[in-house]
């Protein structure tokens, strides 16, 4: 039956592909054993020996053979893992010596992978006469980087064995890794095509600038203000130095004539100078006010846009995003980041522009007045800027470190707040305190090294400023004494300029630090904004105002981690208005199944349809409105009882809310609380018992009035009496709805139209209660056990 294997011909393109990828040395080696490159269906790299050393190897599937190539471990070779390396250097020195093992596909009975922590082992067993197969034999071992490709080969093999042939579609595997088109390095996350290497600080900077684009006219006004301010700032020392001393106080007649003041009146001239100086100050103040107004209109809008973008993506991101990150104060952290970023752009950059402009203009004027003195005063500026630039990466590093320390402290703090009762119950305050202290110390040491570094930075600038001042005084006095054309006024003006430079320079020292901090925050913010939610609404999603509630699952395979399926090829059909009961031991995948139906996750293979429409195509809004879940871990958010009940429908009237609570048998205990429906519950509010929470979530589902209702052990944490009450409200609730009910107690599923038993991610039994009892399988066993247990305890 399995004797003849038929293969569809591989297209030219496919062959080219394989040739391109398998190194020539390997192809040559294979051809020495009569394996032609066009016979090769696909292959996978391996990177370990069976003894647990790194070594290159291949698993190659050909038309009729499985070929395992191994090389000797080579400790001089660098092994690159996911995220490292670029496309160009991907392929391996192929001049290795290969040891090969050839197995005819016909001889293989089973081909499987055992997963280990950091990879897996491929093994097979031979076909033998009779029922038994031969012993399991290890073939190759590899790290997690390769496991996808190996599993693909295993899958192709099983299709081959089952169907006898492979279609081109099944051969094709998703492009394993993707690479940055710019620098060619591997994306760490191919869903999120961002190359951390190309995404440098400059592009983060430009990206933030985009947020300011809508405000260009205002920003132009602001910049004009800066320039004028900076120009006026220049006039001040000039007036108070050169003009006042050298021209007026020294009674320079020429100068007065050039001003056109009649009769060489020094008093008028003095008055004029004072007036000009006064006006300069006033203008600077007025310009400052204009800038302030502009800033006040721009900043809040920019911050708002950033925050709303962050929250929008955060809302769309599925649970797994948060699983992979410490969530300690995620919200506050994001908010603070947004403020830090805009803070720099609005308060920092304008001053930066003013200051740079001031420095440049001052330098020009100084050089024109006396280039020697100017040189003496400014010679250190380029040096200090170079040093600052060199120190930037370090600063960046320090800010990042402080941030991480803070975050881990926050999450520890969070843990302790939420778990306060457990901590106390087990008398662990002291050890928790110690652990917290450790984190706290980490924050402190990070902060200390940052401050230390900051101080060095700042000291550098202060030293420079003082040196510059001494140089000007010293060198200036020397010039004054030795050179006739050097005047006292010029020296005074110069010292004025040097002093005036102190402000901008101090600021620059701060700006470097500020810039690092803000870019660091921006990076974290963009990290979230850029995260692509795994569950996305299609742009042309189907609107479904009404649903009937037919559900169909076709060959659904899903696992929380790639290549570790929790559900395997589930096929299931539920008719509208019917009730399906799901039974199975804990960890079997029941909750996972309903999570897929409410689209908290997407299946890796297979499709789910509601009323014949793929749920991936249904608009989120309609899906959420029509599918409600009462789950084993109920989610109570911070708010009043009424708000919690009206979660899906915030506009619900008091009537509706109370009605829903009554039907969920929650009304009674709610009324007994002093603030009734206005009692604040959730993290900081009043604590509810497990059963009370569950009843509130049932009320929530009743109010939402969904077409599809999912009950995931909805009565798991209530006593028998309450369960009876809730059961009654559930019986009311399931009317006219498609219901999926997961329960441990089979009595809860009495009314189910159909039952399935899930074990190890597969549906093992299916049918009505009576049919399943007849089958005498797991369901029967469970039922007997429960009735006997109850009988023994004298209940029921």
């Amino acid at each position, binding site marked *: 039956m399995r004797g003849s294997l038929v293969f569809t011909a591989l297209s030219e393109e496919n062959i080219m592909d394989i040739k391109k990828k398998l190194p020539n040395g390997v192809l040559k080696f294979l051809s020495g054993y009569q394996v032609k490159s066009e016979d090769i269906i696909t292959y996978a790299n391996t990177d*370990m020996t*069976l*003894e*647990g050393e*790194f070594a290159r190897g291949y698993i190659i599937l050909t038309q009729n053979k499985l070929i395992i190539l191994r090389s000797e*471990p*080579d*400790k*001089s*070779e*660098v*092994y*690159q*893992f*996911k*995220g*490292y*390396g670029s496309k160009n250097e991907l392929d391996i020195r192929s001049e290795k010596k290969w040891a090969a093992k050839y197995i005819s596909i016909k001889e293989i009975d089973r081909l499987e992978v*055992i997963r*280990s*922590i*950091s*990879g897996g082992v491929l*093994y097979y067993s031979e076909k033998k006469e009779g*029922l*038994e*197969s031969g*012993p*399991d*034999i*290890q073939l190759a*071992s590899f*790290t*997690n*980087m390769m496991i996808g490709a190996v599993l693909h080969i295993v899958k192709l093999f099983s299709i081959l064995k089952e169907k006898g042939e492979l279609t081109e579609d099944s051969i094709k595997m998703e492009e394993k890794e993707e690479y940055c088109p710019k620098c060619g390095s591997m994306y*760490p*996350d191919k869903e999120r095509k*961002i190359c951390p*290497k190309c*995404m440098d600080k400059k592009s983060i900077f430009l990206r933030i600038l985009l947020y300011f684009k809508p405000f260009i006219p205002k920003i132009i006004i602001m910049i004009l203000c800066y320039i004028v301010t900076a120009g006026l700032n220049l006039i001040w020392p000039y007036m108070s130095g050169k003009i006042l001393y050298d021209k007026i106080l020294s009674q320079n007649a020429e100068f007065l004539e050039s001003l056109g003041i009649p009769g060489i009146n020094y008093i008028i001239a003095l008055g004029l100078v004072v007036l000009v100086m006064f006006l300069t100050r006033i203008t600077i103040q007025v310009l400052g006010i204009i800038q302030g107004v502009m800033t006040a209109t721009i900043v809040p809008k920019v911050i708002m846009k950033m925050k709303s973008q962050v929250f929008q993506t955060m809302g769309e991101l599925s649970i797994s995003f948060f699983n*992979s*990150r*410490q969530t300690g104060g995620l919200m506050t952290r994001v908010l603070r980041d947004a403020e830090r970023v805009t803070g720099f752009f609005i308060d920092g950059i304008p001053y930066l522009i003013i200051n740079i402009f001031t420095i440049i203009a001052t330098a020009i004027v100084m050089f024109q007045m006396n280039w020697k003195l100017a040189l003496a005063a400014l010679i250190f500026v380029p040096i200090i800027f170079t040093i600052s630039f060199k120190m930037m990466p370090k600063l960046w*590093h320090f800010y*990042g*470190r402080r941030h*991480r320390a803070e975050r881990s402290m926050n999450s520890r703090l969070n843990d302790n707040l939420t778990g306060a009762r457990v901590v106390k119950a087990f008398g662990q305050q002291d050890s928790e305190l110690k652990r917290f202290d450790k984190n706290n110390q*980490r924050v402190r040491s990070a902060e200390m090294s940052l401050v230390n570094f900051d101080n060095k930075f700042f000291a550098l600038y202060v030293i420079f400023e003082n040196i510059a001042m001494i140089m000007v005084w010293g060198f200036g006095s020397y010039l004054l004494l030795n050179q006739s054309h050097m005047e006292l006024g010029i020296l005074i003006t110069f010292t004025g300029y040097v002093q005036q430079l102190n402000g901008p320079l101090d600021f620059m020292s701060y700006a470097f630090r500020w810039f690092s901090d803000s870019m660091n925050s921006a*990076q*974290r913010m963009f*990290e979230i904004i850029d995260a692509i939610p795994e569950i996305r609404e299609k742009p042309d999603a189907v609107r479904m105002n009404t649903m009937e509630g037919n559900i169909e699952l076709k060959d659904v395979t899903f696992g929380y981690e790639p290549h570790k399926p929790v559900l395997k090829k589930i096929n299931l059909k539920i008719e509208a208005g019917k009730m399906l009961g799901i039974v199975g031991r804990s960890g079997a995948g029941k909750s996972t199944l309903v999570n897929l139906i409410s689209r908290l996750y997407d299946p890796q293979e297979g499709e789910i349809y509601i009323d014949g429409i793929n749920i991936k195509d249904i608009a989120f809004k309609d899906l959420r409105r029509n599918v409600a879940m009462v789950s084993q871990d109920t989610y109570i958010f911070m708010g009043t009882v009424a708000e919690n009940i009206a979660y899906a429908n915030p506009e619900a009237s008091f009537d509706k809310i109370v009605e829903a609570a009554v039907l969920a048998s929650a009304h009674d205990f709610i009324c007994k609380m002093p603030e009734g429906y206005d009692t604040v519950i959730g993290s900081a509010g009043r604590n509810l018992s497990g059963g009370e929470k569950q009843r509130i979530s049932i009320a929530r589902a009743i109010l939402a009035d969904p077409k599809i209702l999912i009950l995931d052990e909805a009565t798991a944490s209530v006593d028998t009496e309450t369960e009876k009450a809730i059961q009654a409200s559930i019986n009311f609730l399931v009317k006219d709805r498609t219901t999926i009910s997961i329960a441990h107690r089979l009595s809860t599923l009495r009314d189910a139209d159909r039952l399935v038993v899930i*074990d*190890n991610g*597969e549906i*093992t039994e299916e049918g009505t209660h009576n049919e399943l009892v007849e089958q005498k*399988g797991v369901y*029967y*066993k469970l039922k*007997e*056990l429960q009735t006997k247990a109850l009988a023994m305890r004298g209940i029921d």
Partner: protein
Amino acid sequence: MKKNDNNKLIDNTAEDEFNLEKMEKETEEMLKLRFLTKENSVFARTEGGFVSLKIGDEFYKRVLVYRVFPFTNPEGYISIREPDEKAKEIGIIKDLRNDVTKETREMLEEQMRLRYFTPVIEKIIDIKDEYGFAYFDVVTDHGPCRFTIHMGGSSVVYLSDTRLMITDLDGNRFEIPDITHLSAHELRKLDLFL
């Protein structure tokens, strides 16, 4: 229906007639640990590179070997399990050093070498942190490696005050057994995570 497990010779499948006594026995079994020693069990290498186990009249063609305390007690409490997906426990070896023969110990350690494969970082050449990821360039006891981790999550975990476990994007593990043995230069590179 479930595939029948073809690695197991003894029969204790659930499909037979309901029997409360038997079930209670099973439950009781589940609540008890069975300790394996050189007196009651015989391990042997298989031709395929695995290990088989014989306890009295039970025979397992292939068994899985797990550590119960992989970090804190790697040589104690070795759990021997059936090789199917459920991986039901057959028994536990309480102390690998004393309870079994030297050969058995070696062959079980061989099995665990692949399962707990964790290169030990001996030298840090470079760590670069860029946009939410950190790129490691290190030398391990298995040769030079370059790998990438997420900065955000819990990719770097302290197993003790000085012992670090680093998990890369794919879930491959690397270990630094004692950070105090690193040079000041290397520590500075690792500074981000300390």
